[in-house]
């Protein structure tokens, strides 16, 4: 709750500091202070100390799950800021506004992490979406950016409509917008709940870019300025999953038998489409877009399973995925050439950066000792615990093997191919922060408990 308020406030602070601070590069500093403030606020929240009102009329349900995710999102954003923050200056003049928008997004993220009411879900998702439409189109002269923005907007609004329809039907069936729903006792799912549930699943699938509702993702990620893609593909996407898991756990957790197959189908489609399409990409940025779809397929296992393991797992996955993807995008944004060839011989030019990138890639591919492995492991374990679709897991593993193909293409380019990869202004600070990010990934991969999951039991 602290974060929701603070982020909104700091968004305003950012807007106004734009008026008073002429030096655009200071925006980063203000934003960093803001993030730290948010982190502190969140820390207090974790210890049951809310600065503001604690009675939300049941609209919010502040729990460790949401708060830990908020922490993950904030830490990721902070790392994102330290790694890629200065790249924002290349996008346009409105640096302070960009940061303001990012803080508003964070407000939405904090909201969807703790919502307990469909209204808050709707608002939270809209607060996340609207600034993103803008950030996608922030590079106004760039037609790709424009195009991405418009596509995102059109499809995003469409999905909003779908989500609202879903909410309407759920309301129709139950007469309240509160999230908790009693378990179904009848043999059939009441038709309105079924329709509402499906509409909501579709709308949230769209937000987390699960196939076949993923079409916006590659184009928008590709079109958006890379700095913003990085943010969009990580924190925002993970927030979508948190919302998704929360909704399906609290509302539909009592009727898993009725929808698991539907989600399973979405998972399979997502895994197959994401992984296979990524194989043939030539641009790493676009490849990462498809890879994020593929990763979404894995994260959806948490929705599929909706058990305690899944909740721990999605947190770990969110952390692993955010850190690794932010890391890769941070490197990518420094590169002149976004194609695979552009990375040829990077290990020669920047051995440390190449090595850290390798860790990120290994984590995304799910190789042990990285957080990515444990994350995937939790996902599969939770899915196995709750269902018996073993074919689903087999497909997941097959697609994970495919994913190695495109992640390792980057490693091959960096290490085993000749070329002169051109990376600009890689500062020592950048290297240090990148190393910290990679270190976090490794530590999460070895000691997930003490670093993250033990908090879960605190609350």
């Amino acid at each position, binding site marked *: 709750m602290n974060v929701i308020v603070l982020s909104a406030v700091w968004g305003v602070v950012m807007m106004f500091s734009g008026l008073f601070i002429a030096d655009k590069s200071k925006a980063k500093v203000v934003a960093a202070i803001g993030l730290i403030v948010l982190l502190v606020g969140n820390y207090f929240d974790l210890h049951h100390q809310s600065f503001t009102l604690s009675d939300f009329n049941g609209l919010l349900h502040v729990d460790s799950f949401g708060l830990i995710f908020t922490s993950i999102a904030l830490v990721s954003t902070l790392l994102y800021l330290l790694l890629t923050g200065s790249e924002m200056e290349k996008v346009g003049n409105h640096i302070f506004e960009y940061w303001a928008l990012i803080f508003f997004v964070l407000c939405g993220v904090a909201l969807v992490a703790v919502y307990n009411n469909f209204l808050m879900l709707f608002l939270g998702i809209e607060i996340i979406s609207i600034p993103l439409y803008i950030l996608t189109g922030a590079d106004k002269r760039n037609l790709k950016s424009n195009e991405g923005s418009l596509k995102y907007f059109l*499809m995003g609004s469409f999905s909003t409509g779908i989500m609202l329809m879903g909410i309407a039907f759920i309301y129709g069936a139950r007469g309240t917008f509160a999230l908790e729903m009693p378990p179904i006792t009848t043999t059939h799912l009441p038709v309105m709940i079924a329709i509402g549930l499906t509409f909501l699943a579709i709308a949230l699938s769209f937000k987390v870019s699960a196939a076949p509702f993923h*079409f916006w993702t590659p184009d928008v990620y590709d079109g958006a300025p890379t700095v913003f893609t990085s943010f969009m593909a990580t924190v925002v996407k993970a927030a979508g999953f948190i919302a998704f898991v929360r909704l399906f756990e609290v509302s539909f957790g009592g009727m898993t038998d009725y929808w698991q197959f539907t989600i399973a189908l979405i998972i399979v489609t997502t895994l197959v489409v994401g992984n296979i399409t990524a194989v043939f990409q030539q641009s790493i940025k676009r490849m990462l877009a498809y890879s994020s779809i593929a990763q979404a397929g894995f994260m959806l296992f948490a929705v599929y399973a909706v058990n305690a393991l899944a909740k721990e797992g999605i947190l770990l996955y969110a952390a692993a995925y955010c850190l690794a993807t932010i890391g890769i995008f941070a490197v990518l944004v420094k590169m002149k050439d976004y194609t695979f060839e552009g990375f040829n011989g990077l290990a020669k030019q920047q051995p440390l950066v190449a090595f850290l990138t390798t860790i990120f890639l290994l984590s995304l591919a799910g190789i042990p000792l990285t957080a990515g492995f444990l994350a995937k492991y939790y996902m599969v374990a939770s899915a196995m615990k709750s269902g018996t679709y073993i074919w689903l897991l087999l497909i997941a593993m097959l697609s994970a093997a495919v994913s190695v193909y495109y992640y390792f293409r980057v490693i091959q380019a960096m290490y085993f191919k000749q070329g002169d990869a051109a990376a600009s202004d890689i500062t020592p600070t950048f290297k240090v922060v990148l190393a910290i990010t990679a270190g976090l990934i490794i530590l999460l991969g070895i000691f997930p408990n003490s670093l993250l999951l033990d908090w879960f039991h605190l609350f």
Partner: protein
Amino acid sequence: MSNILEYIWLVPLFPLIGFLINGLGRNYLSKTFVSIIGCGVLLASFAASVYFFMSVKSGNSEVVHLFDFISTNSINIPFEFQADALSSLFLLIITGVGFLIHLYSTAYMHEESSTHFARYFAYLNLFVFSMLLLVLGGNYVIMFIGWEGVGLCSYLLIGYWFKNTDYNNAAKKAFIMNRIGDLGFLLAVFWMIQQFNSVSFGEVFAKSPQASVAVLTGITLLLFVGATGKSAQIPLYTWLPDAMAGPTPVSALIHAATMVTAGIYMIARSNVMYTLAPTTQTVVAVVGLATAIFAATIAIKQNDIKKVLAYSTVSQLGYMFLGLGVGAYTGAVFHVMTHAFFKALLFLGAGSVIHAMHHEQDIRNMGGLRKKLPITHLTFLLGCIAIAGIPPFSGFFSKDEILAAAYEANPVYWIIGVAGAMMTAFYMFRLYATTFLGSFRGTQEKEHHLHESPAAMTIPLIVLAILAVVGGFVGIPKVFAENAHSLEHFLSPIFAQSEELVKKEHALDHTKEIGLMAASVILALIAISYALNRFSKKPELKEAEGFGKILANKLYVDEMYDAIIGKPLKAISAFFNNVIEKAGIDGFVNGIGDGVQYASRQLRLLQSGQVGSYILLMVIGIIILFIIQLFVQ
């Protein structure tokens, strides 16, 4: 005090030491030193053998347990030696003949550089070591160690001149054919383990009578497969003539006197099992006889001095198997012994000739060597007479014992056997006449260089000649003197169990036996005189024609094998490699990769860039999901 036979491991130890010294020091030792070591260890070994032989002769025998070799929970295969009559006799033959051949080699191989000279002696010592292991082994696994070891040494020695590709091929062929036999041997051992849970001779033989005949037939047949490989019997005999690529003393030692008789030794050792498996015995006899006559036929048309001897060896080995097949174990072992004497003699003699002729081996280029090489000539002649089976030379006694036993089993065996003996006499004297009689047919220069071999070579010849002449007297048949067959008496403990199982009576009366002997001797004499007449005057110099040509080409057996086994194997391998591996399995694996790539290329076309089609696809997805959610479940 423990049994003196506990120390029988000394016998193989000496050659092993010799091998190590010569092998490791080959770059540093002088030829003289190598010779001394090489021969010395053999002499020491021989002396030890004689000592142990005497001990055994006085009724001693022992299974010497050295250490655990393969000992698991379920099976225990110790490293053990069996010191008894049979093995001690073989020890004598191996170390004795071996020593002589080592001695001979010091002169024969003197042209080699000192490194290669040492290598040669190292190999020879290693061979003797392996052979001793083979005959000393107290169970089938230790025997198998020697069994493969001699195969290896044979391989190394045949390919001794490794620069020559043909020699290498011959060596390879020898090893592989031996391995085919070895597989049979191994399978037999596995079977034994399954059946008896032991491979030690004593235990296996003790348990054999309880085993079913089918099992014993199986085991013995498989063992016999091993024997056909090692002892060059049909169908695995073709490597032996090729093995003549090696230095001649090697041929004498390995491919005449010792290694090739391993099969006979093994069957004689396993006599209990063979006696209990009459079917196998018949097979052994028939194969032996067939080999005897088949190889003899081929030998008639060979022009290479060593090839003739090689086929002769194959043929003689066939006789030995005939003996084993008809139950005349003593006879077979007896023939092994006499054959070791005269065949080693003949080979060494041939070596002497080749040495004198500067590595010329074609008998069509020889002739009239009698005068130039008197000692060689004389000893060679004695060898020929011995192999032809003329009394009272050694070959007569041993061969006759086998033939007599064959007659008892089946007179047809005898008829074919004698026909083979006749051919033996014929081709040996053809060889003798072409080489030593008549006039020299080589170049002037070669004639000029002809000379008798040095003492190191002639002494072994003389010793072996004496043995070839008198060796037979250890086994004088009962017809001539009761209880004069000292060999039979000596070996009786080995074959006692078999004798007891068969309990056959000597159906052959003495007159008939003498008649048979006479018949075979007369036929041999006729063949000899014909050969001498025909080939001393005008030796056959032109290319053979018709059936002779087929014989000269060894009945095209090699070509047949190549067509039946060699070429198909290559074709299958190439097929596996090119079709199944590359196009099939790997193609499938790569196909999956290509399939994913293709799918990727196609699937990404869905991402057309058109918002309209995106939303359309989404709506289609929505409809499908609704149908599934609402109606399917």
